[in-house]
């Protein structure tokens, strides 16, 4: 399991693409937003948590099809499926590797990008916390979507269509948590709901992803 995790991490970092690309995409989204809505800093600080969450979500989406596509093409996915490790564990490790290479850098970079968007000082802690709790759910749900579309030739667009509706609850509670704490309201409900969604998704969705992957490998 650890060997597989290390292999995926090394591939993501050395093969180019995945690792830096998500961050760069996140940066570009953050830079483009002021061009779209105007340089009004009070407006920007109001929508900053939402933009940062959306940017993280889109950056995450961008790298999803790489989770299985390369392994599918060169056949190593078949090898993994016949390995003694259960497919559920493989799927979980893949999701973890995806989170470590995409989600975690986004969480670390979010405060820096928050400065660009004039995020109020009260928002930094809750925003980072909500991203830290929420992005694992994005990776796990995305792994399910990637497993669904792995055998398709033009799966990229379909993948977004399938995965984005599934992201709705995470996005709502994540952005809501950051927004509420900026406005000085209690963010406890959204924090607990977000944590609940993430843990439920981590516990249950790998089974669905593995089942889907088995069908696709048939």
């Amino acid at each position: 399991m650890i060997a597989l995790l290390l292999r995926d991490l090394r591939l993501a970092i050395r093969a180019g693409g995945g690792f830096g690309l998500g961050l760069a995409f996140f940066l570009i989204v953050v830079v483009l937003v002021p061009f779209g809505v105007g340089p009004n800093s009070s407006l920007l600080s109001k929508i900053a948590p939402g933009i940062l969450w959306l940017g993280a979500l889109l950056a995450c989406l961008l790298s999803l099809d790489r989770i299985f596509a390369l392994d599918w093409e060169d056949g190593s996915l078949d090898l993994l499926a016949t390995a003694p490790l259960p497919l559920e564990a493989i799927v979980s490790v893949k999701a973890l590797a995806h989170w470590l290479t995409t989600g975690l850098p986004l969480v670390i970079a979010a405060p820096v990008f928050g400065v660009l968007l004039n995020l109020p000082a009260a928002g930094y802690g809750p925003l980072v916390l909500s991203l830290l709790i929420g992005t694992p759910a994005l990776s796990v749900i995305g792994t399910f979507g990637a497993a669904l579309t792995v055998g398709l030739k033009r799966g990229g667009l379909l993948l977004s269509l399938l995965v984005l509706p599934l992201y709705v609850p995470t996005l709502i509670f994540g952005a809501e948590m950051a927004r509420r704490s900026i406005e000085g309201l209690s963010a406890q409900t959204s924090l607990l709901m977000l944590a609940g969604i993430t843990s439920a998704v981590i516990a249950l969705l790998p089974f669905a992803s593995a089942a889907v992957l088995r069908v696709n490998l048939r």
Partner: protein
Amino acid sequence: MSSIWEYANPKKFIATTSRLLPWVTGLAVVLMTVGLVWGFFFTPDDFRQGSTVKIIYIHVPAAMMAINTWAMMLVTSLVWIVRRHHVSALAARAAAPIGAVMTVIALATGAIWGQPMWGTWWEWDPRLTSFLILFLFYLGYIALWSAIEDDDTAADLTSILCLVGSVFAILSRYAVNFWNQGLHQGASVLRAGALVGDTEERVSNVFATPLFISMAGFVMLFIALVFLRTQTEIRARRMRALLARERMQ
């Protein structure tokens, strides 16, 4: 005593539904005509909403069918996963576009009603938003069906998507509820059926009777469409099998 699973045989399914189809279609036409004509022309105008209230005879049944279609797809997907009956998977496939259209009808009639009543075509109200999300789920489901070439693989993947999607659809419904307070009224139709209690919020019986007839008409319409579309799917698959066999020779 014959078991219900006999109808999983495509031949038997086609034979039975062909016999039932004219009756169901006739019933749908009669019920919808009675319900809509009664609703549109023989009910009084609401004293605050005027004649716009009459859109409920389309809006409410369509919204009901939009949700129930997904529930039906969930059941048939489960039957496919557990018992591997092809008719079941094809019925789910046949129902999805109907559900998507019902969702659009509910959203469109709601917007047309909302413009004079709420003063806006669209509001990020929980019910409206969750219906839009439901529509996205339908789109994804239909797209996945059409993207995969192998029939059994497509049936497997879409049924798992349907299961996972159901959980997330319900989750989104409550998340959206938390996210914004609503403009849309709460559930008031079912309370209209209970004759006891005379709260101000319930739908008056003057409107309720044609509404229930119209709802029954929409259910019949849905059943007729599912029968017809499932038959078409079965025949299309049979035709493809025949063509493939011919090419082999």
